[in-house]
């Protein structure tokens, strides 16, 4: 069958007419397949949600137990029949529970990557390429200037700054889901075993990660105790907070903080400067340019559909490579802070 008949873009998101379901819909629908727990992909209010058990738990943690009328848990690789369409989930390596959605019907197989990356992430299963007719790839960092450096090197920058400025708190802005826990895991792997302080908004997600088997080491809430001298408690400490908290009144409790920000956008100096970041850490949960192009070559689909980010550049690259490629122009997916 024609791929457009199996999956096509609609204002609510990618829709599968024969299976009557949406993938990562941005509006409430009857049946949603959700690739991962980030807010722009996983919204509350759907009639039914099919996702990995981890993603369902993340959604319940973020939105409350009643985020959907019906949960359908699908283990990785478990084939589900949705009105005759076969669907299964494959690891995407983006955050805990993240998956690609594989859709197969009448001999046509399409893979929706969701958000993904190829490099190692100690908090989730790695991306697995799936041969297919149509690959629908994200392109958040779809420009050849985005080449994320080695993660360990970026984390080492943070450790070095802690040594250089032992009297200053180090405030690390990181997405509350995924990035924060990944940074913490990397710090642990690189020998940092002191207590890491976390913003209140991260507490429940960190607890969930622990419960799902991702050990994060000693954590404590970044709250100032009653009484004097509490500000000094954060000297030379690592404090992880959501990016939005870095410029908020909350950040004032720390002594002359070093503002660090873990994000793929930190690759571009002007972006880092604009945000007032003193220590940019180029760590992203999205594929960089090389990962995107390597993945397309490896999967080698008959067609490449591009969504979510710099569609023009990746489509251009694919065409120069002699591939069939098109932009999808889906709207509603924002990864400004990754």
């Amino acid at each position, binding site marked *: 069958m024609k791929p457009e008949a199996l999956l096509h873009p609609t204002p609510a998101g990618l829709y599968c007419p024969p299976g009557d379901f949406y993938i990562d819909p941005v509006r409430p629908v009857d049946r949603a397949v959700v690739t991962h727990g980030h807010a722009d992909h996983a919204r509350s209010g759907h009639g039914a949600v099919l996702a990995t058990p981890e993603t369902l738990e993340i959604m319940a943690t973020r939105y409350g137990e009643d985020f959907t009328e019906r949960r359908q848990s699908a283990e990785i690789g478990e084939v589900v029949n949705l009105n005759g369409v076969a669907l299964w989930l494959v690891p995407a390596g983006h955050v805990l529970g993240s998956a690609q959605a594989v859709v197969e019907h009448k001999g046509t197989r399409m893979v929706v990557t969701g958000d993904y990356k190829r490099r190692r992430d100690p908090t989730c299963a790695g991306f697995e390429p799936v041969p297919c007719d149509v690959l629908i790839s994200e392109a958040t960092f779809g420009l*050849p200037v985005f080449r994320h450096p080695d993660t360990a090197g970026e984390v080492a920058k943070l450790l070095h700054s802690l040594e250089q*400025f032992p009297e200053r708190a180090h405030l690390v802005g990181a997405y509350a889901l995924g990035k924060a826990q990944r940074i913490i895991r990397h710090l642990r792997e690189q020998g940092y075993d002191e207590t890491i302080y976390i913003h209140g908004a991260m507490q429940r997600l960190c607890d969930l990660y622990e419960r799902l088997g991702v050990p994060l080491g000693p954590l404590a809430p970044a709250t100032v105790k009653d009484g004097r001298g509490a500000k000094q408690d954060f000297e030379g400490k690592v404090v992880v907070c959501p990016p939005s908290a870095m*410029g908020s009144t909350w*950040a004032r409790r720390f002594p*002359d*903080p070093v503002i660090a920000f873990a994000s793929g956008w930190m690759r*571009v100096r002007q972006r880092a400067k604009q945000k007032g970041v003193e220590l940019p850490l180029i760590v992203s949960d999205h594929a960089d340019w090389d990962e995107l192009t390597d993945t397309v070559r490896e999967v080698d689909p008959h067609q490449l559909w591009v969504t979510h980010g710099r569609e023009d550049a990746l489509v251009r690259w694919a065409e120069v490579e002699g591939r069939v490629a098109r932009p999808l122009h889906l709207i509603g997916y924002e990864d400004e802070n990754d």
Partner: protein
Amino acid sequence: MIRFAGLLDRLIFTPGRNAKVRILTDYFREAPDPERGWAVAAITRDLDIKTIKAGQIKQLVYTRVDGALFDMSHDYVGDLAEAAALIWPEKPGQNYVPTLTDAVETLNGVTRTEALEVVERWFDALDASGRWALIKLATGGLRIGVAARLVKVALAEYGGKPVQEIEELWHGLKPPYLSLFSWLEGGEKPASAAAAPFRPVMLSHPIEEADKPKIDLAEMSAEWKWDGIRVQAVREGDERRVYSRTGDDIGGAFPDILAAMPFDAAIDGELLVFDPHVRDRFAVRPFNDLQQRLNRKTVSQKMMKSHPAFIRAYDLLWLEGEDLRPLPFEERRARLEGLLLREHRASPDGDERFDLSEVVDLPDWDALATARANPPLDAIEGVMLKRRSSVYVPGRPKGEWWKWKREPFLVDAVMMYAQRGHGKRSSYYSDYTFGVWKDAENGRELVPVGKAYHGFTDEELRKIDKYVRDNTIARYGPVRSVRADEDKGLVLEIAFEGLGRSTRHKSGVAMRFPRVSRLRWDKPSREADTIETLEAMLPEEA
């Protein structure tokens, strides 16, 4: 190159001065000779390689990547060097990574064509930061917002020496500064090798009310405080230099002064611009005119004609081989007067560019207060008091020299935009753009006239910050647009030192050193000042 690029990356993003000094001293400790010396020269811009043009870098990139993709990337990133550094495809297997020393030594000794070949090879071996640093170095575009002065402070800190000693030596030293580093690490102090060296300057204290009883006016000599920039003009044989007060050589922008130094002397004075239409003596133009000639590496003939510079001398530090600094001020003054008179008599029709800052007779506090409040010229910003017996010592010795600046100008303006600060203030809206009323087609509108980011206490900052957050009408990145109309708006009393005409500002005026002097929570926004009030404060036209 990688270590140097890492240093630049840290310095670019670090707002705090002390933090920058620590990053520099740690680097000096870690990097070997001669690399650290080349790094110092690159940052202080004493290293001019400029072997490659930006356009050549672009052509080089086109040979390696799809031009359309590069153009999209360049568009997105903005800076060519950065886009090129980031997009360059890696070539695994390059096993020699060039150091900064390799880069400097090689690029200085090759032709343009050879340079491009070398750079291409190094691009393959470096990472993105390293490539960026290399491009900036090779195209002569290294600007990272670190003043030469700060590097000297860091060197002083590293070696535990007073910064004045480094300033004094500086112009006799050459990159990569091996003798300097050796001294800072306990070796012998390098001989002061340069002719016409800089001599660290003596500074004054501002007079507060409480100081007055401590100052015996009978021991003091009074002068005007000129509104120019403090310089030191030195000639020794063929060597002629004009230094800023921190020892930066700014002579390149003032060839008219360099050409008119007939004496072997070191003169401390104020750099000013005079009115070329007044033949008589130097009729001083306001600071705004001098501004046209500052911060340039070179100057056009036209500019030198329309804005001729001169030095109003007030001290003589060295004369024909003799160090006068140990002499009392009175005696140095007498020698200075004698020198200027002698030169004037020697060539009365020559192109003189030095005159004397007169001693003014202001015997008591009343006379001083009157003179300070009503100076005879726009180019005077207050009065100076110098102890007649004072010897010339670097820094700010207690009780020797005093300055009493005129009261600042004041204006009531309305806050229009607020921006988040840096470092300790990064969670506060602490930088404010303010405006005054101007007639427009439909009633009045605010026109921005300046920016201020200090003058308030921490307590006040917290209040303003809350006001900004509560009254935001739009956001643009770190900037918030704050409600400001006839009915609502925060009035700031702004103090500033002077006002000039400006074509770069929509309002047509530019303030010097604006700061918040008072928060007018009580004042309705519609009662803030108008642009006419400011225009009336402008100095008369040339």
